[in-house]
């Protein structure tokens, strides 16, 4: 087999893995969008914030230490303990739930019945606020996140492919782990929304706010729950990306990458988020591999958006989205 094809296969596989990570972020968007019609731009920043909180708590960092030091002239940094990963994750989850409650209480309660675009802009504001808040709380430097996920080249795949093609594929253990986690997460979310009482209530709210209200579903509770769920998905995504490339500002930019994923898959569909993520992941890696060298490289920055843009012109609701019907 020619080398180019084998390389191409490796790139394809890596693209699939990257796509899973995009899909993970996109999932959080879909959850909130379905239940409340809010397009949550802050999802990426939520991932960043949760990863930062996790790192900070595991290292026993004092929150706002820079600010406290600047105001009172003290010099405190750490409590001096190290939490195990599991407890850190649980505590972070608690904070994300608190955050969800606050967001609902302070912001979106007052914006009910506003136009979607106003809500969207409010989430941009929220994203900025949380970015500053997270940095202020835990410091703006790049942090290392290690919760014990296996990393590095997967030797088994390397060996197996070496025996077949004479060339070992480089697949990161972390990516495989992320794929498994994403699969479990999706199954869990689908099961939750199909078979539990709260999940059904969530779908009812997504379908029709007023009808749901009239049969006794508490909108407030559902929205807080949905934001918490999105916070949980953000935490998972934050852990994966944080382990992969360090907890840093660029983490919040993956939210932007999730947007074309959503447009491709359709805003309202969980399978759409997964398929869209895979298409974007594979597409941009393959494009970079095949066409990138001809036109100067680094096409990953824009390929996803342009693909989504072209796609939307032909199918405005995305692959799996509900058909947009306009009534006057």
């Amino acid at each position, binding site marked *: 087999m020619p080398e180019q094809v084998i390389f191409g296969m490796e790139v394809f596989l890596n693209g699939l893995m990257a796509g899973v990570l995009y899909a993970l972020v996109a999932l959080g968007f879909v959850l909130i969008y379905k239940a409340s019609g809010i*397009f949550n731009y802050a999802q990426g920043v939520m991932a960043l914030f949760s990863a930062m909180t996790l790192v900070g708590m595991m290292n026993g960092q004092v929150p706002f230490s*820079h*600010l406290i030091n*600047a*105001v009172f002239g003290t010099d405190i940094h750490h409590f001096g303990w190290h939490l195990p990963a599991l407890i850190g994750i649980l505590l972070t989850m608690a904070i994300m739930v608190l955050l969800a409650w606050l967001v609902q209480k*302070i*912001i979106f309660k*007052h*914006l009910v019945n*506003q136009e*979607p*675009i*106003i809500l*969207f*802009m*409010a989430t*941009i*504001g*929220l*994203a*900025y*606020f*949380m*970015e*500053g*808040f997270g*940095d*202020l709380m835990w410091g*703006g430097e790049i942090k290392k996140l290690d919760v014990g996920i296996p990393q590095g080249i997967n030797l088994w795949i390397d060996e197996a492919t070496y025996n077949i093609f004479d060339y070992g594929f480089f697949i990161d253990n972390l990516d495989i782990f992320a794929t498994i986690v994403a699969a479990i997460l999706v199954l869990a979310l689908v099961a939750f929304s199909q078979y539990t009482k709260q999940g059904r209530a969530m779908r009812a709210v997504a379908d029709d706010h007023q009808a749901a209200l009239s049969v006794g579903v508490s909108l407030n509770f559902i929205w807080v729950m949905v934001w918490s769920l999105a916070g949980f998905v953000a935490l998972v995504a934050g852990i994966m990306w944080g382990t992969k490339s360090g907890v840093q500002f660029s983490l919040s930019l993956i939210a*932007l990458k999730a*947007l*074309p994923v*959503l*447009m491709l898959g359709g805003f309202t569909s969980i399978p759409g988020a997964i398929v869209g993520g895979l298409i974007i992941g594979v597409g941009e890696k393959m494009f970079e591999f095949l066409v990138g060298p001809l*036109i*100067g*490289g*680094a*096409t990953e*920055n*824009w390929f996803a*958006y*342009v693909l*989504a*843009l072209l796609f*939307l*012109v032909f199918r*405005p609701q995305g692959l799996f989205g509900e058909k947009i019907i*306009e009534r*006057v």
Partner: protein
Amino acid sequence: MLYREAGDFKTTYKEDNQTFPIKFDRYRYYFVLIVAFLIIPFWINDYWVNAIFLPFLIYSIAAIGLNILVGYCGQVSLGTGGFMAVGAYAVYKLMTAFPDVSIMIHVVLAGAITACVGVLFGLPSLRIKGFYLAVATLAAQFFLVWIFNRVPWFYNYSASGQINAPERTFFGVPVTGANADSWATYLFCLIILTVCGIVARNLTRGSIGRKWMAIRDMDIAAEIIGVNPLSAKLSAFAVSSFFIGISGALFFGVYLGAVEVGEAFGINKSFLVLFMIIIGGLGSIFGSFAGAAFLVLLPVLLKNLFVAGLGWQPDLATHLEFMIVGGLIILFLVVEPHGIAQLWRLAKEKLRLWPFPY
């Protein structure tokens, strides 16, 4: 007492239709123009021009442009940074290719080129709406920045990949390059801003502006009463990109002088201008000015307060600035979705009745 329609008799249609129907407003407007053109240039120094006036003037142009698209026509765009980059690179290519032509012509041409690019990226708006469109404009943002980074022709094959503004003159006075005096750069931007402001104001209250607003309020209904969505949307994209292109050209040529595209015209620039019009007021020319002034002044104030005043580290102040800006956006959307302009409008309504409200 002074702020009254009473006693200000309009005897012609022209007077009746003027921009500032109230005498006090009119005088205030002339007063601002006189101060801006005849007093400030004699008084400012380099610090004031570079820290406050130039960014304010240039961002105001960009904000007016974006406000036409978002506030008047209802098409949300996140590609402002990319379009500003088009303006900057267009003016750079023109400046280096035709060194003898006046810089003013170059700036206007750069705006025209940006308008063409804007129309191109506005085409999908005929099919897709709302935040689907917002995401589609992100494609413009990333693609344009990438192309200016990767195609050497745009930066004249310079080794660093940067573009540097050479010295160009306007009526014999240098306004770009290292030798430009601060008053000259200030006046140059002010002239352009004034013209842009007047043009935008009159466009938005004329028939084309009404078409934009009809599309914004409900595009299907607008179509039924005879507004052509194709021409209305694309003209909004064109006019908006024209202004944004001009502001990009000034931002590069007059203000920064040297630009690295990813840094100067990244996605953050898009958000900054969007925030300006949200805080200032969607669908208001005055709001564009107010929002630009607010977001230019806020970081300067915070820096002076925290870094110079309290001796904090600059990065702490930056983080706090992020929080405050984000918080303000939310606050404005919750409390006053029409921004500073609406507060101003309310104040004027109150003033009209003052001191006898009933």
